[in-house]
């Protein structure tokens, strides 16, 4: 069945478009607002103002020192070199535990992707140990490794390992069959396939596992130091907080907590953000 259309046919000759610019710049305020750090800094500033207001309203230095008091205690601690020294002590232990945890997690997941037994092993171990709070192992660790860094490292490894292994393994499972086959097609097998194909392809999951592991480790370390920090003769940041609470220097307690938060923000903002920008976001694997 054919009907004659009512409308006329037509053709246009297109002239180059010059009256309208193809590209326009956004206004300055909008461009500034695109920066994540600026927006976050604004949020932090608002929180600081609220804190200051609340502290002045309660007017009790012992319970709630104001933002400015905390800031000056923080500055004093930094200038006297006490806080940086504590941070350094904590960081060294933390990094040791973190790195060992990463290596073990990688070994375990590599085993899990290549053998059935490895899969079962990883599955049972993570379901057993992941829900177990690392700090609950500290008494046992002290019994085994004595007072000192080694027991701290043990609980740190425990806190990093399972979260990272779980995330990495989930990432490996999510790698598309096509990509795996492409890798095998070029003759990659075993560990080379893991390194060349699986790890980069699962990097978004691995990075989120690293982040979670970092947070777990940081938490566990501060908690462990609060209790056993002075064990090795020189305490870390957790010990600094605990000691100052005993002496009722509440502003220093707040300064110690602020350092914990600041380090968390720095690592998140500088290390992980840079890593993500240089890898997964650049590759279009993550927005």
């Amino acid at each position, binding site marked *: 069945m054919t009907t004659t259309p009512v409308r006329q046919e037509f053709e246009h000759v297109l002239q180059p478009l010059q009256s309208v610019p193809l590209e326009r710049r956004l206004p300055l305020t909008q461009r500034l607002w695109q920066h994540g750090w600026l927006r976050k800094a604004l949020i932090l500033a608002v929180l600081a103002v609220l804190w200051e207001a609340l502290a002045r309203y309660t007017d009790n230095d012992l319970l709630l020192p104001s933002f400015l008091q905390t800031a000056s205690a923080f500055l004093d601690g930094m200038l006297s070199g006490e806080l940086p020294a504590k941070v350094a002590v904590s960081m060294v232990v933390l990094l040791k535990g973190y790195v060992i945890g990463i290596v073990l997690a990688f070994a375990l997941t590599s085993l899990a992707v290549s053998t059935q037994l490895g899969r079962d092993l990883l599955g049972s171990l993570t379901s057993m140990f992941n829900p177990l709070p690392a700090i609950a192992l500290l008494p046992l660790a002290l019994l085994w490794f004595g007072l000192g860094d080694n027991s701290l490292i043990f609980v740190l490894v425990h806190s990093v390992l399972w979260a990272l292994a779980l995330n990495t393994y989930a990432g490996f499972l999510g790698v598309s069959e096509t990509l795996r086959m492409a890798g095998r097609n*070029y003759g990659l097998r075993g560990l080379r396939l893991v390194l060349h194909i699986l790890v980069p392809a699962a990097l978004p999951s691995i990075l989120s596992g690293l982040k979670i592991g970092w947070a777990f480790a940081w938490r566990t370390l501060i908690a462990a130091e609060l209790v056993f920090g002075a064990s090795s003769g020189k305490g870390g940041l957790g010990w600094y907080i605990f000691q100052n609470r005993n002496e009722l220097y509440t502003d220093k307690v707040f300064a110690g907590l602020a350092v914990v938060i600041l380090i968390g923000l720095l690592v998140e903002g500088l290390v992980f953000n840079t890593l993500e920008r240089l890898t997964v976001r650049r590759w*279009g694997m993550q927005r």
Partner: protein
Amino acid sequence: MNAPLPGHAASTQSRNPQAAPLLAVDHLSLEYRSAQHVVRATHQVSFEVDQADRFVLLGPSGCGKSSLLKAVAGFLAPQEGQILLQGVPVRGPGPDRIVVFQEFDQLPPWKTVKQNVMFPLLVSGQLPRKEAEQRALHYLDKVGLAAFADAYPHTLSGGMKARVAIARALATQPKILLMDEPFAALDALTRRKMQEELLLLWEEVRFTLLFVTHSIEEALVVGNRILLLSPHPGRVRAEVHSHQYDQGSLGGAEFQASARRIHRLLFDEGDSPAPVTELGFNDIRIAY
């Protein structure tokens, strides 16, 4: 650009039918194992591919054509029969049989276009970095993507990704190039363009191609020989020549007759030509 490349057969003008085939698939049966069943994908399929053939496996879904390609690539072990590449049985995947997949995610997103093309050359130890880079750029130029060498795959269109995959496959100069419905995920216009470019590349490089498709038109245009497979399980129904057709023959009377003949062979509609109005194309895509 027209200099003959090492590793590729230069000419096939005088083909000797008695010569040993490049690829011989001999009474090959393949099986898939699911949790409950063992499914037979192909049953005693035999065919031979000569140097510089553009050999097409054509059939409806369930005829095991993709399984056959995977078996040739070495991803699937034969249940019975064997696959011989230059007289040597195929065992496991290897860079002498490069596969171009249908999916766009066959290109690692963490490598630029150039790095993607270099990747198989480097990991298989075929070439040192410097020469791999030169060869990558050479083949990227051939598929018209020299300007995009440093772009990441996620910034490319589907057709461009397919071109990169083809360049990557050609750069390794495999004994045989395996393509598993490489253009099926592209839009119709891009697909036609890609078929045309593939034929131009073949004219220039003369690689050997094993091509899987479910489109009769694509088979006739791309292939010089077509193997028709029947479904459930895949068995050889016929072999048809299609060397006389190219993009220009689309829609011609002879081309249509061949397409109809293939359709009849695939769906066993007796000897009478199928009436055009009754073509129920669920599995076979005939239109562009």
